[in-house]
């Protein structure tokens, strides 16, 4: 099997973000970056399939400036066979522009499976995987939380709001990975050493003109502090009254 995984370098979300001087980017000073969690689960899914199917190969692809090589090396240290950087000055916000650049590279690779994380927390769009599938005319199942592949066919589970879907599909296919599919392995010391010698190809890409423009970024308004109505059972009537008259939720 030939398997591709598309990964993104994203900042750690457990911080207070600051807006950059240009007003349309996040200030990256002091931010820690790593592979997107959903993408790490996609890498894990690809590695498990490769190890079950002799003669398989996993390629990791990331679009962006040279700093994404760090993210590619992380995937290589987990066990991915080779990496491709689609070199661009920056990662655009427009998912279609990213999808077009990735699709151009992926169509030449004749992959049996193309994995994506279901979304990345920074742009919070979750559109690139299904867009690529459409541009390549390939079957696609998004946000999978279980996966079985056998005899050129696949079966997956998707989590919906309050329900689940069981989906069948033929290969080749595009899959986007949700939480719960697996636990991503940590790179071993041996893996980290081996990753340094694995092939990492750098290919410059021209991104198409975006049809959407970021006008500004801002921090959300601070939430008002909570109010303590009282303590113990005696406060309940007052709380119920406020929920009815002020919050209007009952």
């Amino acid at each position, binding site marked *: 099997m030939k398997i591709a995984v598309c990964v993104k370098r994203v*900042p750690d*979300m457990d911080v*207070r*973000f600051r*807006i950059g001087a240009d007003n349309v980017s*996040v200030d990256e000073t002091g931010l820690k970056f790593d592979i997107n969690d959903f993408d790490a689960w996609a890498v894990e899914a690809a590695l498990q399939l490769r190890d079950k199917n002799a003669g398989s190969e996993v390629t990791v692809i990331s679009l962006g400036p040279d700093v994404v090589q760090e993210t590619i090396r992380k995937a290589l240290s987990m066990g991915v066979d080779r990496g491709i950087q689609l070199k661009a000055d920056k990662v655009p*916000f*427009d*998912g*279609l*522009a990213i*999808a077009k650049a990735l699709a151009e590279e992926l169509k030449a690779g004749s992959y049996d499976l193309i994995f994506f994380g*279901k*979304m990345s*927390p*920074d*742009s*919070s*769009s*979750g*559109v*690139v*995987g*299904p*867009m*690529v*599938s*459409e*541009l390549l005319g390939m*079957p*696609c*199942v*998004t*946000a999978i939380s279980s996966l079985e592949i056998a005899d050129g066919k696949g079966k997956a589970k*998707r*989590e*919906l*709001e*309050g*329900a*689940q*879907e*069981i*989906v*069948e*599909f*033929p290969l080749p*296919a595009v899959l986007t990975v949700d939480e719960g599919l697996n636990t991503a392995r940590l790179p071993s010391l041996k893996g980290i050493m081996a990753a340094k010698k694995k092939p990492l190809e750098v290919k410059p890409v021209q991104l198409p003109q*975006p*049809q*959407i*423009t*970021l*006008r*500004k*970024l*801002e*921090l*959300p308004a601070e939430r008002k502090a909570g109010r303590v109505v009282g303590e113990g059972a005696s406060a309940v009537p007052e709380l119920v009254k406020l929920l009815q008259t002020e919050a209007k*939720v009952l």
Partner: protein
Amino acid sequence: MANVFAFVETRGGDVRKVGLEAVTAARQLADKFGSEVHALVFGPPGIGAKAAQIGKYGADVVIIVENASLANYNPEAATATAADRIKSGRYRAAVFSTSAQGRDLAPRVAARLGASIVTDVLSLEVEGNAIVVRHPMNIGKVIATIAITGTPAILAMRPNVIAPAQNLKAGRVENSQPAIDPNSTRVRVIETKQGSGGKLDLAEAPVVVAG
């Protein structure tokens, strides 16, 4: 005329609240353009009976696509049907929902039309030639204001940010067919398990109490 398209999400033969929210959001845009809302309802036989309800939420035209093979979501048939209609109707904008189904469907439709998309839309405005929307980034810690200049503009509303508003319209009904045979698609949802240990349906919840 710059009409606005809305995709009305259904599950199990019922219209979901997020589907009505998409109609209301489309109505807001159409009122600014002085145009019509055309809402597409896609599902199993009987879904057409919901047409009057959708008109009540501001759709001028309700396009009903009923097919016995649409008891479960069919991503390829839904993509083809929505994309064909958006193209032939020359819509200025198309509104979807950022639900599990909408996250799957809307980007495919956008890619098929060669259009960009903004998901999780919090609010929308019209400024000159652009539709200007707000979208949360970095797990809601940053809010982006984004201008969409391409046509059609493809938007997916975040659930629960627009209350479905009644806006009586005649809701002229048009019956249509899936653009491709749902039995011929490569990807097939063979089962939808309701409430079987899946996540709670917060998108349909008017109030969420967390501790």
